[in-house]
Structure formats: structure tokens, C-alpha cells
């Protein structure tokens, strides 16, 4: 929504934080230019008001900006994509504008290394001048031979002064000659010089740019000798050179090109009574510039179309008139234009004293001599190689009109430059063709034109008054005003994104961006890998495909992703929520759910995107935080908050934050006049139509697989689901159908962040499984520099002050800081760096540390949060303990936030460095203990998730103990029938159990339980009790997969009648192939039994899909059966939605009930009677069922003792609490302990298996390291001062302190360095002052405060 430059960082905190240049295909304006002038570049510069820079861009390829800016027929504008919005940008006029603003002489002359070779150029027209310019830049000695007394060729003698004032041309010729180009006027080739002669005269090369100055003949009798017939080119030349001053009488001109129009307007200005143009076709076919034709009409030139001269009428050898014939258009000719055909008998006479034939020009090559050895082509033009412009004679080149026949100046400029390149290479003896043969690359990938772009009128130049126009040769067009020009330039849609102005190259101080790196493009690199993980994510649904939302038309209809940016502090409005149309704060916002999801009428996405309900609620809640008065409404079909803690968030949104939830799908949005407000209509649940107005509408767009990813999948031959996601099986949830290729994230199905992170770790485990033999073969290990002992040395502080380019030095006075720091106590060495973080600076720092024998290092630069590890690495390389380092943030905390006040920023920088100096003197080397990790794993719980975890661990080569309390593996899976994908669970289970039992790295402990845990990450000693036997297992990591169980309902008459069963009990019947199921005529399912209730406020996630699946199974067994599902929200997320659709199609009836009006179940005469209020009819209905299935909740197998032993927490619902809801879903905050399966949260089989693998993957990252390094900045207890009060053991969130049980210090506390996270809580809680925090010791903080 905001604007982004081509050189950008994706967002403020991007990693890597480097800027990059984004380029799409070359802008079409630039591609269209025959002179390859970078139109996009100079238009951008003009938009920024950088006119000199604009000229620098232009003169990279065109030395005559003011000339071409006036007369070019601008093919660039025909290609301009702005015309898709309104009309092409006035590119050509902008070029003139730029040239008008800056004197070309102000542009610096680059340093040129002069060479001695001479080059001759024949003709000072656009081709010759351009060739001369570029050759002179290469250092060659260039002489131009010009037949006329003036330079410019056709530009001077073909284009009238009112279009191109000679002064402009002369200045631009000067711009060329100032490089040392010499022009010899009045020197005609063939007469004064010859090509062969030049070559013999010491010129290394000759360029022929003689143009087309010979008029074509009408072919009428008397054309050559009747007085009053003047060929067009000659007429214009004589006028330009002042040889004709005045004409009288009537003038007729034959032709339709620029020469005809120019001749007409010139004749008018020279006093002709009447000027007529006779053209044989219509205006549409006229080759002259549209602007010129328009001007001619304005100046009362009589342009007659469909006329052709047939005879000259004369009296005494003097012209009196022209007999003409009318024409009509016939079939198209070779040029594609319709061929004019004479209309018989339509002759008529035009009175004329002067006739100017202007029907074309030819190259006059009559100067060629045999010795020249230069050949012409069949049209009489110079024959050249199309890449090099070399003629048939080596060293002789030709270009421009002389090569192409009469064409446009910019084409001649292009030819001149290309020829110059060839000539330079020819003289240097290089290959002239290398890298120049143009490849036809289709240009189509452009910066998309933003939706909702405002249409603007095209800028036009003003003209001088008509009287002035007709009476003289003053330039007609007056350039653009600065305001208009910049506005016009800023209309550019930046097709290529980067405009290649190369301004960035000029300013890059670090030398990272050079002409070469700027040119860098995509390249193909081949990499050999053992496995592939595809995690290419999703593409947000493009809502403009759904016309009725008017996303394209209404500025205040935004996507949820755009709304996210509106909320963000780094977003387009810096976190200030305003609506796009008028930047007003919205007071009423509506969210529309399921946009591009669960939608088969208007798009093909039948699946649920899984995440939109939750993100919409979150956005509404956060928006309310921004503005508590906000009226926020969410329009939805089913509220699908099935994730961990999501239901609570939903309840809070409803009850605490007052978000309105409206169950309705809105289909119309109408704008309210010009207010920007939006009127919506929807039907309430009770059938009433409601019309309401909102300030803004947010579309909760779904997730899709991008076309590119689909292509990739096809390349890999990966099977896809109907929803275009990767097909996987429940037991191998991250394996694609292609061996060795794995999937994670939303390519596997629409999913939220925690699930994506689980899958990602699972994919890592699966991908690594095949490569165990090559583990650590391609990774690198680092050399260790011995650490210098600094104990006993007085502090020798080295301070490095960073400029960060200009980020710091632009505000903070670095020299002042340097002088100040130099005087601080113990500072031995001070220096500044342009970029302290650059690689070469690290090397220099290492040298300085050694040379000056420094023992404490301060870097005053950016934030330690990103750069501390880098500098600590440098300390290590210099042989210093890495904790002898302190970073001072004078960028984020000073220069950036006090830009307006450099003095205060400098003062603050000095103070911050002074505080760091005070602290660092007291810092001491710290030890990091290295502890060996026992490469053995333990998995507690032998269900599907635990077995998967154990299998992954074992297959990566680690001994694994699988502890199961029951007498067999498998857990709940024994009671399940089928997965939603239709897989038979008993088959799956026996398959997995077989794999586990035959895996030699797994030791299975059945009928066993954990009775004691000692130790910590890497070194646990766990006691397993089996009956009366105890066994101590030593292991490095543990995974808790303790599973869950079905809630046994206390409601709905459960237990009173065998016809009332739970979901698992129904599955058991199906597993037993119970014949009674075939006789069920009426089945009812009640959802949310024990879930989403006040005492158990979570959604059990699996029950909706399970009941839908079971309902379908019942329907399969007895298609006549009536099946009802009584639900609150159907939560068949992801592609499970298709099962829901299938069930509805199969005739399963879904009846919604609400929490405060639950169904009533009664037993009547041996029948089960269920009464439920139908929300559509608003009436109670009663169903007599043969089978009532209660979709009951999933409860975790709560085990407080186990949780305590492993020091892991549980939430209010007794599920384990993971390290981080999003980023650490399969591990505990306690190091070395992991979790998976139902113990984490209710989940279906595929997700439980994935999490088992994920927990294994996380554990393997520890096991594979072999050792763990503890942090040095941790707490340390002085046992002599410790009073043994035990406060520290109670406050520590990580159980790091414990009381020593025996020995000299029994009863005192000690810190386990492997567990301590260095938070310092125990330090400030210690009543005896016995605990210190290394790196943040009291004296260190006091020292900082003292000098602050």
C-alpha cells in the first residue's frame, strides 16, 4: 500500500538486513527506443527533481537530449504501460524539459585516456555526431567531414527552426566537440576527400553517415525543368540556410511525411498565400508525427486526403497548377497500409505557383569510387553487417539514414553508437561481435500496475500565439513547467522497478554496489543434495477475482494481509490505523470470512484455509487495542478456532473485547456516494435482511498454492491433492510421493504457524534420515585460537566507533566522540570505521587487538542483539575471551532517534560509551562449560506419536528407549477405524508397530512407568519401574508423548442405554464390523460433548471430521438411514472440508445448536429421543434415534508427577506447555525435553505423527552436536555467604539452583550451569548477597550508573 523504492530492504528487521535492487524485465519504453535511451531512468530522475542526473542518464546513450526531446517521434511512448491506466507518459517532452533545465556544459567531462588512433566520420548528422561522441569518450582522435557549412545534417537543414531552434542544436554539437572532436565543414566526400584516401591518410577507420539528402521524383513530365517545382528536401535546406527568404502565391505539396508537413508550415511562414498538401491516403495512414499534423491543421494548412498529382500544368515554362485525381483505399499493401487506387474520371485541378514534391528521400552514394571498395544494397543504401555496422570494406562502417533509408533521428543515434563500439573494438583488435548479438528475450514480467490507480490527464506543452507562429520561425512549443513536468514524470508505473539510473552506484560508500554488481542477474547454479525439503508456502488468494466484493474498485476494501500492514508499526502508516481512501480513522470495520475458501461457485477452492478465522479475530482485537471505540464485526459461516488456546481467544474477543460475530455470508458491497463508506447487505440467521454501513471492509482471504509451485511439483513429479496441495499419507505426513523429497508448511495443506513449524521439524527429521551415513561430512568446523590469559593485567581498552556509512556519522559527530573516548580511563586505542561489521574490518580489528595487546573491547555501533556474536567471534579469533566485550548502541539509541538534534545525539553517544568503558574495566573472562551429551534418547508413551518419534530418533542412529505403561504399543489408535483420508487405521498401526519392533536401535519397555528423573540436558538418569523391577536409564534427551483419552460424558444420558455411545465406541463397532450398524435407520451425532464448555474451554479439534466421517460410513452401510449431526460450528479445517461437503451431498442433515440451548436427550419406551431447536425454523424438533453418538472431548493423560520430575509445566486444561506457542511447539522451555501428540493438544493422526517426528528432530539437533556449551553469563553462588534459605530455588523458573545435600557445603545452594539462563532473578532475590550474575555483576551495573 505504501511506496517502495527499487533499492530496498523488504522491511526494517529483514534478515539478511542488506538492501537489494529489484529488477523486473527491462522497461518497455527503454526496450522500444532504437537509441536504447533509458527513458525509465530519466523520467524517474525528473520525478525526483534531479535534472542533472536525468541528463547523465540520457547522455549515457544519447548526446543530444534537447534535440531529440523536440523532434523524436518517441516509440517509447507507444510502448508505455501507463496507457493501461490512462495515457502514455509524455516521455519525449520530459526529455526536452530536462535538457531545458540544465546547461549541458555543466555536466562533468569524464577523465578520458587519450589514444593516438584517428577516426574519420563523414557527415555531421545524428549518426555521425553520436559516433564521434562515443569514440571521443574512448579517447580516439575524431574528425568529422561535413559537406555543408553547418553541422547537424537533416536536424539542421531538414527540420525547420520553429521545431528545432538552431541554437539548441549548436549547443549540443558543442557538447560533443568539447571532447576534442573536430568538424571540417564545406568538405564534400567524393570531391574534397575519398574514403580510400582517408584510410591511406592515417585514419584507422571511417564511418559513413551521409544520410538521405536526395529527393525522390514524382515521375511526372516536366518535373525537372518547369519553374516552380522545388523538391521538398532542397526546399527545406534552402530555407534553413537562408538561400530562400520569401515565396509568393499558392503552394501545393505532395506527400504525407514530416518533410511534407515541414515544407507546408515553412512555406506558410515564408509568405505563401495558400498552402495545400496533397496526400494519396487518409489521415490515419499519414506517416508524419501526429503533433505535426495537428499543428499544420491549426495553422490553416489545407490538407487534402486521397489525392494524387497526374500532370503538371504550365504556361511558358512556369507552373500554374497541378492536375490531380481522387483516390480510394483498396487492399492493404506490403506496409500493411491500404493501397490507394485512382477513381477513374475524378480528375480536378489545384492552382499552384509552387509544387513541392515531398514523397521521400534516397541515399546519395554517387561519391563512392571503385577504390573505396564499399558496396550498396539493392535499395541503393550502404550494405552493412547488422551487428557491427561494418561495410564490405574492412574498417569502414556506415549507419543512419545512409544505411536504412530515410528514418528517424533516434535510429541514427543508435546506429552511430553501435558503430562507435565496433570501431573501438576494430581498432583495438577485439572481437566486434562478442556479446552483442541480441537474444530475443520475451519481456513480460513487469512491475504490476497497482489496482485503483487514479486516472490523470497527459501533460501537454503550451504553444506561442498563432500570429507569432505564422509570421516567423520562433519555436512553437513552450516547454513544460517544473510542476507539471514532475507530476507527469511521477505518473511512471516503474515497469522494471529499478530504473537503472545508477545513482545508487554513485553513493555506495562501501563499494558493494558497482556497475558490475548492479548488472548482476539471475544465474543458474547446480547443487548436489541428498534430500530436498519443499516449503515454498502459499500465495494469498487474489480477491479481485470475486467481482462482487469490488476489491478493485473500492479503496476501503482491503485484504487481511494489507490490514496486517496497516496495524504494523513498520507499515505504510506507521501503525496508525487509517483507511486508504481518505486516511481517516475507521470507526466501523467488517471482516468477511471465507474469501476464496470454502467457495466453489465463484472459485475452485472448496477447502477451508484453516487460519482465517483466527487471524480475523486477532486483527479485530488488535484494531480494538488501537481504538477502543472501534465497532468491529466478523461475518462468518463457522467459527473455526480449533487450535491450542484459540477458543479462549475467541471467547475473549466476544465477551471481553466486544467484537460482533455475525453468522452470515455477505455478497454485496456498495459504495456510499463519494464518502468512501461501504454499504453491505446480508441476511441474518432468522432470515431478516439487514443493510449496514461500514468505514472499511477487510477480506479474510484464503491460502492457495501458487502456479509456480504447482509447476515445481509437476517437475518433481509430486502427487497433488484436489485442492492443489502436496499429497501425503497419515503415517508419513511430510513425505511427498517422490522419494527423497519432503514437504513442510502450507504446501502440504493450509495451516497455521505452529503446525507449519511442527511439519518443518518433521521434514528435517525425515530428510536427514536417509543421510545419516554422511552426517557432518559437508559441514565445516572452525579452527580454535588459544585464549590469552589476561588475569592480573590492568584493563587495556580498545574502542571502535562505527560510522555505519552515514547512519551514525550523519548525526553523531564521530571525531568529537573519538577525541572524548581517547581521554577516558584505561582506553589504550581508539579508532573509527566506516562499517565496523564488514569482513575486512574484522581482520583489521584482530590485528589491532594483538598489536596493542588490548584486553577489553568496545564497539560503539548498532545493536548487540544482531551484531554482538559477530564481534565476539573476532575477539575469539584474536585470542581474547569473548566476554571481554561490550557493545554500545549509538545508532538505534542515538543517531536514528535524535536526528534533529546532532549535539544531543553526540552527547548521548559519548555518555553511553563512557558507561560502557566504566563497565568493561570490571569485566572478567568467563568460562563456558562444555558438557558431553549422552547420545541416547527416551520417549515416554508408545502411542502413534511416541512410536513415530522413537522411530525417527532410532533411524538417525540414536539408541532410543520407548516407555509404555500399557502392555502393548499403539495407544488410542487401537480404538480408531479410519483416517479422514480413508486409510485403515488397524493396518497403519500394525505397520508402524512392526517397524518399531524390528528397529534395532529401539528398546521397548512395556508395562513401565517413569518413577524418578535425575540430571539435566545431555545427562539424564531416569528410573523406570516395571512391576517390582526398577531400571535406571541414562539418556541425553527425553520426549514426552503421554497421550490423551476420551472424555466419558456425564451428560446426554450416556451409560443409560447401549444405543448411546461415544465416537470411539462407534469406531469400535465399525472395527468389529458390527452388523447392527447396517440396521440403523436414524443416527444422531452430538458435537462438542465436553468441549468448548466453561469447564473445558478448548476445541477437541478432531471430532467434527470424525463424526462427518462416521456419518458417511453409516450412510454407506445404509443409504436410506437418516443421519443428523447436531453441531455448534463445523470445524472440518483444511481439505477435510471436502468430507463435510460430501456428507451434505450424501444427505446428512446438519442442525446447529447453541451452547445455551443444548439438545435434550431422553429415553422413551426403549427409544432414544433427542430434542433440538432448529435455528432456521426457530422451532424444536424431536428425533428418535437408533444410535446416538456423542463426539466427546479429548483429555490429556494428566501426570503431575512426571511433569514435576522433568520440570515441565501444564496449562489449565492439563496439556503440556510448549516452549513457544508458534516457534517451539514440540519442545519444552526445559532444555533437552520435548513433547508431541495429544499431551500437547488434541490432534488427528497425521499431525500427531508429524509432531512425533518434529520432537525427534529437535532432540537430534542436541544429540548431533555431541556436546552442549553453557552460557558464561550465568549466576554463581558464593557458598560462604549463602544462608541456605532456599529462596533462589523457589524463584528460579528453570530449576537451576538446588541445595547441596552432602559434603562441606551441605545445605547451601548451588547453580547448575546447564540449567541457568542468566536472568538474574535469584541474584536480586538473594537476601545474603551470595549470588552474583557474571557479566552483569552489581559492581558493573553500579559503575555504569555512577558515570551515567
Amino acid at each position, binding site marked *: 500500500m505504501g511506496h517502495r523504492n527499487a533499492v530496498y530492504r523488504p522491511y*526494517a*528487521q529483514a534478515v539478511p538486513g542488506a538492501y537489494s535492487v529489484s529488477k523486473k524485465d527491462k522497461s518497455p519504453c527503454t526496450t522500444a527506443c532504437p537509441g536504447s535511451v533509458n527513458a525509465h531512468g530519466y523520467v524517474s530522475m525528473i520525478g525526483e527533481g534531479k535534472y542533472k542526473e536525468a541528463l547523465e542518464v540520457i547522455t549515457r546513450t544519447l548526446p543530444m537530449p534537447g534535440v531529440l526531446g523536440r523532434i523524436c517521434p518517441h516509440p517509447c511512448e507507444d510502448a508505455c504501460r501507463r496507457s493501461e491506466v490512462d495515457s502514455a507518459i509524455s516521455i519525449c517532452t520530459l526529455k526536452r524539459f530536462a535538457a531545458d533545465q540544465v546547461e549541458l556544459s555543466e555536466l562533468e567531462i569524464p577523465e578520458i585516456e587519450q589514444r593516438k588512433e584517428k577516426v574519420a566520420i563523414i557527415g555531421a548528422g545524428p549518426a555521425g555526431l553520436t559516433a564521434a561522441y562515443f569514440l571521443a569518450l574512448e579517447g580516439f582522435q575524431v574528425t568529422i567531414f561535413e559537406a555543408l557549412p553547418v553541422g547537424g545534417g537533416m536536424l539542421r537543414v531538414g527540420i525547420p527552426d520553429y521545431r528545432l531552434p538552431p541554437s539548441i542544436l549548436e549547443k549540443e554539437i558543442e557538447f560533443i566537440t568539447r571532447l576534442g572532436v573536430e568538424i571540417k565543414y564545406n568538405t564534400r566526400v567524393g570531391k574534397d576527400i575519398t574514403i580510400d584516401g582517408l584510410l591511406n591518410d592515417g585514419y584507422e577507420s571511417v564511418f559513413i553517415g551521409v544520410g538521405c539528402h536526395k529527393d525522390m521524383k514524382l515521375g511526372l513530365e516536366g518535373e525537372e525543368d518547369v519553374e516552380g517545382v522545388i523538391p521538398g528536401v532542397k526546399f527545406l535546406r534552402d530555407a534553413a540556410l537562408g538561400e530562400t527568404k520569401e515565396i509568393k502565391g499558392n503552394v501545393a505539396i505532395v506527400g504525407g511525411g514530416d518533410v511534407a508537413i515541414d515544407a507546408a508550415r515553412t512555406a506558410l511562414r515564408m509568405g505563401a498565400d495558400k498552402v495545400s498538401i496533397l496526400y494519396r491516403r487518409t489521415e490515419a495512414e499519414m506517416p508524419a508525427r501526429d503533433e505535426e499534423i495537428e499543428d499544420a491543421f491549426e495553422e490553416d494548412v489545407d490538407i487534402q486526403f486521397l489525392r494524387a498529382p497526374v500532370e503538371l500544368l504550365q504556361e511558358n515554362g512556369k507552373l500554374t497548377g497541378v492536375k490531380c485525381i481522387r483516390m480510394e483505399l483498396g487492399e492493404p499493401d506490403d506496409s500493411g497500409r491500404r493501397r490507394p487506387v485512382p477513381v477513374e474520371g475524378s480528375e480536378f485541378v489545384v492552382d499552384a505557383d509552387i509544387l513541392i514534391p515531398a514523397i521521400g528521400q534516397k541515399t546519395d552514394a554517387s561519391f563512392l569510387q571503385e577504390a573505396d571498395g564499399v558496396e550498396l544494397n539493392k535499395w541503393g543504401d550502404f550494405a552493412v553487417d547488422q551487428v557491427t555496422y561494418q561495410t564490405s570494406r574492412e574498417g569502414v562502417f556506415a549507419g543512419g539514414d545512409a544505411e536504412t533509408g530515410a528514418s528517424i533521428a533516434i535510429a541514427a543515434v543508435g546506429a552511430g553508437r553501435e558503430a562507435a563500439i565496433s570501431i573501438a573494438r576494430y581498432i583495438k583488435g577485439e572481437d566486434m561481435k562478442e556479446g552483442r548479438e541480441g537474444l530475443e528475450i520475451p519481456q513480460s514480467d513487469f512491475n504490476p500496475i497497482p489496482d485503483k490507480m487514479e486516472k490523470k490527464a497527459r501533460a501537454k506543452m503550451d504553444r506561442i500565439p498563432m500570429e507569432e507562429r505564422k509570421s516567423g520561425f520562433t519555436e512553437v512549443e513552450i516547454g513544460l513547467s517544473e510542476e507539471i513536468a514532475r507530476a507527469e514524470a511521477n505518473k511512471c508505473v516503474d515497469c522494471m522497478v529499478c530504473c537503472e539510473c545508477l545513482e545508487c552506484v554513485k553513493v555506495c560508500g562501501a563499494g558493494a554496489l558497482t556497475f558490475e554488481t548492479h548488472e548482476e542477474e539471475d544465474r543458474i547454479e547446480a547443487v548436489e543434495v541428498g534430500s530436498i525439503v519443499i516449503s515454498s508456502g502459499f500465495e494469498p488468494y487474489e480477491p479481485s477475482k470475486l467481482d462482487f466484493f469490488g476489491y478493485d474498485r473500492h479503496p476501503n476494501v482491503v485484504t487481511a494481509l494489507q490490514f496486517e500492514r496497516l496495524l504494523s*508499526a*513498520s507499515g505504510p502508516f*506507521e501503525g496508525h490505523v487509517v483507511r486508504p481512501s481518505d486516511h481517516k480513522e475507521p470507526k466501523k470495520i467488517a471482516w468477511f470470512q471465507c474469501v476464496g475458501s470454502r467457495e466453489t461457485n465463484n472459485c475452485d477452492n472448496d477447502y477451508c484455509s484453516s487460519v482465517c478465522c483466527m487471524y480475523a479475530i486477532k486483527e479485530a482485537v488488535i484494531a480494538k487495542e488501537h481504538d477502543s471505540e472501534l465497532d468491529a464485526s466478523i461475518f462468518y459461516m463457522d467459527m473455526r478456532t480449533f487450535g491450542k488456546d484459540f477458543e479462549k481467544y475467541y471467547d475473549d474477543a466476544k465477551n471481553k473485547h466486544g467484537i460482533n460475530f455475525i453468522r452470515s455470508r455477505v455478497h454485496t458491497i456498495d459504495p456510499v456516494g463519494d464518502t468512501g463508506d461501504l454499504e453491505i447487505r446480508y441476511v441474518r440467521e432468522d432470515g431478516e435482511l439487514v443493510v449496514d454501513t461500514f468505514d472499511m471492509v477487510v477480506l479474510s482471504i484464503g491460502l492457495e498454492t501458487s502456479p509456480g509451485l504447482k509447476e515445481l511439483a509437476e517437475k518433481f513429479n509430486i502427487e497433488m491433492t484436489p485442492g492443489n496441495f502436496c499429497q501425503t499419507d497419515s503415517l508419513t505426513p511430510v513425505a511427498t510421493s517422490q522419494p527423497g523429497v519432503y514437504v513442510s508448511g502450507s504446501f502440504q495443506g493450509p495451516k497455521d504457524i505452529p503446525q507449519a513449524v511442527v511439519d518443518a521439524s518433521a521434514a528435517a527429521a525425515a530428510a536427514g534420515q536417509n543421510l545419516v551415513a554422511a552426517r557432518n561430512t559437508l559441514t565445516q568446523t572452525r579452527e580454535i585460537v588459544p585464549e590469552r590469559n589476561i588475569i592480573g593485567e590492568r584493563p587495556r581498552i580498545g574502542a571502535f566507533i562505527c560510522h555505519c556509512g552515514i547512519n551514525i556519522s550523519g548525526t553523531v559527530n564521530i571525531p568529537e566522540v573519538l577525541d572524548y573516548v581517547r581521554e577516558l580511563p584505561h582506553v589504550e586505542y581508539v579508532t573509527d570505521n566506516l562499517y565496523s561489521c564488514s569482513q575486512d574490518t574484522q581482520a583489521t580489528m584482530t590485528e589491532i587487538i594483538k598489536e596493542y595487546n588490548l584486553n577489553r573491547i568496545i564497539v560503539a555501533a548498532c*545493536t*548487540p*542483539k544482531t551484531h554482538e556474536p559477530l564481534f565476539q567471534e573476532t575477539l575469539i579469533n584474536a585470542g581474547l575471551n569473548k566476554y571481554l566485550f561490550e557493545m554500545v*548502541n549509538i*545508532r*538505534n*539509541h*542515538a543517531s*536514528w*532517534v*535524535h*536526528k*534533529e*538534534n546532532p549535539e*544531543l*545525539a553526540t*552527547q*548521548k553517544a559519548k*555518555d*553511553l560509551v563512557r*558507561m560502557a568503558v566504566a563497565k568493561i574495566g570490571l569485566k572478567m573472562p568467563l568460562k563456558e562449560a562444555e558438557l558431553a551429551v549422552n547420545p541416547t534418547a527416551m520417549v515416554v508413551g508408545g502411542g502413534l506419536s511416541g512410536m513415530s518419534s522413537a522411530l525417527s530418533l532410532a533411524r538417525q542412529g540414536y539408541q532410543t528407549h520407548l516407555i509404555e505403561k500399557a502392555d502393548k504399543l499403539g495407544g488410542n489408535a487401537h480404538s480408531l477405524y479410519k483416517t479422514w483420508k480413508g486409510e485403515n487405521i488397524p493396518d497403519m498401526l500394525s505397520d508402524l508397530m512392526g517397524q518399531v519392533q524390528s528397529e534395532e536401535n529401539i528398546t521397548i519397555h512395556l508395562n513401565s512407568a517413569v518413577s524418578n528423573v535425575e540430571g539435566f540436558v545431555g545427562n539424564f538418569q531416569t528410573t523406570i519401574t516395571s512391576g517390582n523391577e526398577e531400571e535406571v536409564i541414562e539418556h541425553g534427551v527425553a520426549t514426552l508423548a503421554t497421550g490423551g483419552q476420551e472424555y466419558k460424558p456425564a451428560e446426554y444420558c450416556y451409560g443409560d442405554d447401549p444405543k448411546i455411545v461415544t465416537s470411539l465406541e462407534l469406531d469400535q463397532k465399525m472395527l468389529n464390523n458390527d452388523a447392527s450398524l447396517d440396521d440403523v435407520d436414524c443416527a444422531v451425532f452430538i458435537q462438542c460433548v465436553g468441549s468448548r464448555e466453561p469447564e473445558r474451554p478448548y476445541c477437541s479439534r478432531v471430532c467434527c471430521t470424525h463424526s462427518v466421517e462416521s456419518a458417511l460410513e453409516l450412510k454407506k452401510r445404509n443409504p436410506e438411514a437418516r443421519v443428523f449431526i447436531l453441531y455448534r460450528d463445523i470445524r472440518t479445517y483444511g481439505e477435510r472440508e471436502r468430507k463435510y461437503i460430501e456428507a451434505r451431498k450424501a444427505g446428512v442433515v446438519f442442525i446447529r445448536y447453541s451452547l445455551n440451548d443444548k439438545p435434550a436427550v431422553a429415553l422413551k419406551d426403549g427409544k432414544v429421543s433427542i430434542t433440538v431447536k432448529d435455528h432456521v425454523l426457530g422451532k424444536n424438533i424431536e428425533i428418535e434415534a437408533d444410535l446416538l453418538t456423542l463426539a466427546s472431548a479429548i483429555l490429556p493423560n494428566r501426570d503431575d508427577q512426571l511433569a514435576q520430575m522433568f520440570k515441565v509445566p501444564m496449562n489449565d486444561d492439563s496439556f503440556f506447555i510448549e516452549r513457544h506457542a508458534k516457534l517451539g511447539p514440540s519442545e519444552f522451555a526445559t532444555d533437552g525435553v520435548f513433547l508431541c501428540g495429544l499431551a500437547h493438544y488434541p490432534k488427528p493422526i497425521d499431525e500427531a505423527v508429524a509432531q512425533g517426528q518434529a520432537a525427534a528432530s529437535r532432540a537430534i539437533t542436541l544429540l548431533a552436536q555431541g556436546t552442549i556449551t553453557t552460557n558464561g*553469563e550465568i549466576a554463581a553462588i558464593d557458598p560462604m555467604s549463602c544462608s541456605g534459605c532456599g529462596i533462589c530455588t523457589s524463584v528460579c523458573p528453570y530449576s537451576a539452583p538446588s541445595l547441596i545435600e552432602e559434603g562441606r557445603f551441605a545445605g547451601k545452594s548451588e547453580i547448575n550451569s546447564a540449567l541457568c539462563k*542468566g*536472568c*538474574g*532473578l535469584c*541474584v*536480586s532475590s538473594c537476601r545474603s548477597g551470595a549470588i552474583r*550474575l557474571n*557479566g*552483569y555483576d*552489581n559492581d558493573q*551495573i*553500579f559503575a*555504569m*550508573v*555512577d558515570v*551515567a
Partner: protein
Amino acid sequence: MSDWEPKIITFLCNWCSYGAADLAGVSRMQYPANIRVVRIPCTGRMSPKFVLASFMNGADGVWISG
């Protein structure tokens, strides 16, 4: 007194507020230059003694954030 500027010593938790101060810089937010930052590993490290020491050393305010 009109040109009096308070000196504020700020104790910032490394994990949240210090990062927030970094982000304020990244976002180029402008605020008065009166604070002097002491980075601490967690506000759990904060001790009343640091507050007292700050005031003893002439601070006009102490700001603890975490």
C-alpha cells in the same frame, strides 16, 4: 528553570524493551535524548539498589522496562 532537562537512567530488559528501543530506531521514531540506557538480562536482575544508586548519582528519574 525553563532549560532544565531531566536525566533519566533506563534499565531495559535485553529480550523485550531493549529490542523495542532498537525498533524505535529502526522506525526512526524521534524522542527526547534524556535517557541513558543500561542493558540488563531480564528485569528479574533489577535490584532496588540500582534505583537508589541512580538517584544518588544525580538521576532525576529511573525507568525500568521489561
